[in-house]
């Protein structure tokens, strides 16, 4: 019986940016709560710094990048050092951040929690789709 591949999730760090914080939180929920058996963490700083394990995984297995803004550091970095991501998510396509509070650059607040939940659910659905397509 063949085993379906795990999907690597690569989130941007996004310091000083609410999009980055939301991306990170949603990614953590998928990795730890929603799809823990189907996904693996790929640490973007380590990936960019030259982590061979991270880069090797991303060359062989499907990946989803989650970027908090249109600079797409996770997507561009993954394509540059490994392979083009299977799916690239840009959080700017999800929401207008101008209404988010400064505090939300660092800590999820009530106003951003729905967005985190939606993004996490969408990522999980993408994981399922990628894995089912690999059969």
């Amino acid at each position, binding site marked *: 019986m063949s085993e379906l591949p795990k999907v690597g999730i690569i989130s941007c760090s996004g310091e000083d*940016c609410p999009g980055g914080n939301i991306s990170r939180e949603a990614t*953590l929920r998928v990795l*730890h709560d929603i799809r823990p058996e189907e996904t693996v963490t790929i*640490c973007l*700083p380590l990936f960019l710094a030259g982590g061979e394990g991270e880069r090797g995984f991303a060359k062989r297995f499907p990946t989803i990048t989650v970027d908090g803004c249109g600079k797409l550091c996770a997507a*561009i970095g993954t394509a540059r050092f490994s392979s083009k991501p299977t799916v690239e998510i840009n959080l700017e396509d999800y929401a207008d951040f101008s209404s988010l509070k400064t505090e939300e650059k660092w800590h999820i607040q009530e106003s951003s929690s729905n967005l985190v939940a939606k993004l996490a659910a969408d990522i999980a659905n993408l994981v399922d789709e990628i894995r089912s397509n690999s059969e």
Partner: protein
Amino acid sequence: MSDAKKIVIPCSGIGKAFGTVAREATYQLTETDYQNEWRTMCLPLLVAGDTEAIDLLKQSNVYTIDGCPKKCATLSVERIGVNVAMEVMVPKVLAQNTDHKPDNVFCIGPNGVLLAKDIVNKILKNGSD
């Protein structure tokens, strides 16, 4: 926003609680009592070669906070030709304050927040002019 002389860059590693602690320490420095003096910068943006970010970095005193011995923040900054004024390793700070062990990568808990404060105090003590 005023130009700050000091920039702190956390590793923000997503695999370990220490990455979240590094972010919390950065938040405490840049968004609370010290915000007029400190700012941060997105590490992946630097590695991606954003010229504006790199130029600002080269004009500043740079402090890195790394969550593990791989030292991604420190190494990434050095690779773009910038000297690091001070490196902080989160596990080493924890070794000096063993009660402040963070809960997990999701939520570092009150002890994790205290560990972040320990890091801030260490940086401020060494970073004073």
